[in-house]
């Protein structure tokens, strides 16, 4: 099953390498990973998407906890949460396709953020499923480049992951 694990990490050199190394070392999957400092510059917030059975996920959270620089973590997918991913897609856009791509982007509430004589770059934000669906919807349009940020997530309601 797919899990979204959110981690508060000491913002120290080597901390990220240690966390990523743990996944490689123990054969766990990383489907996506995003990381950036928080409003408290001493802390980084990291969102990690992984998959595995319950036993594997339990080991992942326990092993993450063991890392000295991991301050706190939560499995967002265990309760109500919001997840978002940002995607930039550069597509070939010539002739009639220019309108078609624009319409498709509108339907997905995407924005065209860069234009050239032969290309559009579309920015889209949403769940990973939505981004997948947009790519599917672009049938017939040559895709030149896709960049995805990986998932960021946060709990719904009063629940927070802070110090």
């Amino acid at each position, binding site marked *: 099953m797919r899990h979204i694990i959110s981690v508060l990490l*000491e913002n120290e050199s*080597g901390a990220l*390498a*240690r966390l990523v*190394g743990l996944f490689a*070392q123990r054969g766990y999957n990383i489907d996506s990973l995003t990381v950036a400092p928080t409003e408290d510059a001493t802390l980084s917030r990291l969102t990690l998407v992984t998959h595995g059975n319950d*036993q594997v996920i*339990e*080991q992942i959270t*326990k*092993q993450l*906890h*063991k890392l*000295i*620089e*991991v*301050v706190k973590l939560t499995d967002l997918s265990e309760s109500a949460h919001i997840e978002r991913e940002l995607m930039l897609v550069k597509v070939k856009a010539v002739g009639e396709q220019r309108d078609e791509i624009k319409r498709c982007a509108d339907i997905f509430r995407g924005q065209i953020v860069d234009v050239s004589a032969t290309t559009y770059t579309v920015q889209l934000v949403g769940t990973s499923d939505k981004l997948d669906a947009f790519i599917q919807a672009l049938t017939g349009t040559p895709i030149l480049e896709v960049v995805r940020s990986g998932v960021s997530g946060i709990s719904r309601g009063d629940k927070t992951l802070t*110090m």
Partner: protein
Amino acid sequence: MTSQSKQAEMLSGAAMIIRALADEGVEYLYGYPGGAVLHIYDALFQQTKVKHVLVRHEQAATHMADAYARATGKAGVVLVTSGPGATNAVTGIATAYMDSIPMVVLTGQVMSHLIGEDAFQETDMLGISRPIVKHNMSVRRPEDIPYLIKKAFYIAQSGRPGPVVLDIPKDMTIPSQKFPYHYPDDVKLRSYQPKLKGHSGQIKKAVTALLAAKKPILYAGGGVIMGGASEELTELARYLNLPVTNTLMGLGAYPGGDKQFIGMLGMHGSYEANQTMHGADLILAVGARFDDRVTNNTKKFCPDATIIHIDIDPASISKTINAHIPIVGLVKPVLTEMLDILKQKKKKLDAAALEKWWQQINEWRQVHGGRYDTETPLLKPQYVIEQVSKITKGDAFVCSDVGQHQMFAAQYYSFNKPNRWINSGGLGTMGFGLPAAMGVKLNFPDADVVCVTGEGSIQMNIQELSTCKQYGLGVKIINLNNGYLGMVKQWQDMNYESRYASSYMDSLPDFIKLAEAYGHVGIRVTKPEELQPALERAFVEHKDQLVFLDIHIDPKEHVYPMQIPGGAINEMFLSKTERT
């Protein structure tokens, strides 16, 4: 980070390192000098509190420090230079990591401005050591050194212990650059707060389950040794009359000569220990981790047992075998709390059921009983270990290498005290034995310290015979010489129709001459009747000297019992011709 008191002494980074070690109570530092650590060595030279032991290869320094930690529970300390000095220490760091041994390893590094430029003797030691340490850090500012050293000891010794590497660029130790020195009393980390006390509700639940058991077993591992809980464990076992088995790492946690002790369990465990585990309706696992050398096939593992698992590391619980009642905490306070509840309740197990269980266990004891062929004219390794156990009254520190001799030592030496059996259980590091024995002998000069080894393992760090001479380390080397890499050969006999691919060692040195060349005593033993007098000479006549006993044993011997691959814990080969 460092508090700056007005009277603080001004010290260089190098001097701060040595002073911090002294303030931490470190007596010995094991290491090898080199370019990146010369400032530190110079600081070491100018004081007398911290003494340095010069090994002949950095791996030996790590094993010496590791063995000191295993014998005392306190972190051993290593100092090596950058590049090859650091990489040579890697095997020893991994050895300590796999067995959860506290160790602080100080590695030199090239100057900060050269890092990343492939400078002479530069290697990314933080990167290399990351998967095999509890934690690693580097010094960025010399004034942080006292704090970082305190933090290294705190992390290494608290919670589930392990090695910590501190990488020190050379420019952090420049003698002319001085900073106020203050050694912190303690360190608090918001991201690391190991749980100490067990959850009282869980402990009560465990006691209730334990009291309801009809076929219990106490399964104790290395956590009891490192957790200093041998006394509490023994008291609990005796209070409830529980059968006790120890893992390879746990030997000595419960007295080996006691009638409630049913031997080591697992791959080469006793018949009765493996049968008792398999048949148990309750397993009280204390500081053990259900590793693959214990469980055999996890799918067939102890089908009827309720499992109580006490461990300091939550990640060890339900990792391979699901625990019904997990208790996270230091084993010592948890066992004490269990004992208190039991004594308050004044309850014991169902006496009739327990009596029946013991009858069954005693029957199992008769089946194999550690027997081996005594009819042959050849010297048997089991007999050698029994005789060593006898002459040292089960009271020696036994430091083992890795292979058949390690298993014979585990099976046939009767460990009556904790911290006396020093072996590389998790990583299985050949070459561990001699440096380990040296580390123990240096710190316990009056004790008998034995290195049980084979002609394969001993040659992996034989250069340390020179260190032994320099520091007068009178360890007794029991070299069980069969001319083969015995454990490899055993597997080749059992699984590869005796095709001995690279397991025969031709051109062995004359170990007697070799020992003498290094200034020690060498004795060769080739017949059973020569053993006793040779041991007398080694342990009595040459009590204070290093004696290398080259003992030629039956080259065909196998270690039994041996679990059958893929089977349950209780499925074993009992000899070359018998199986369960």
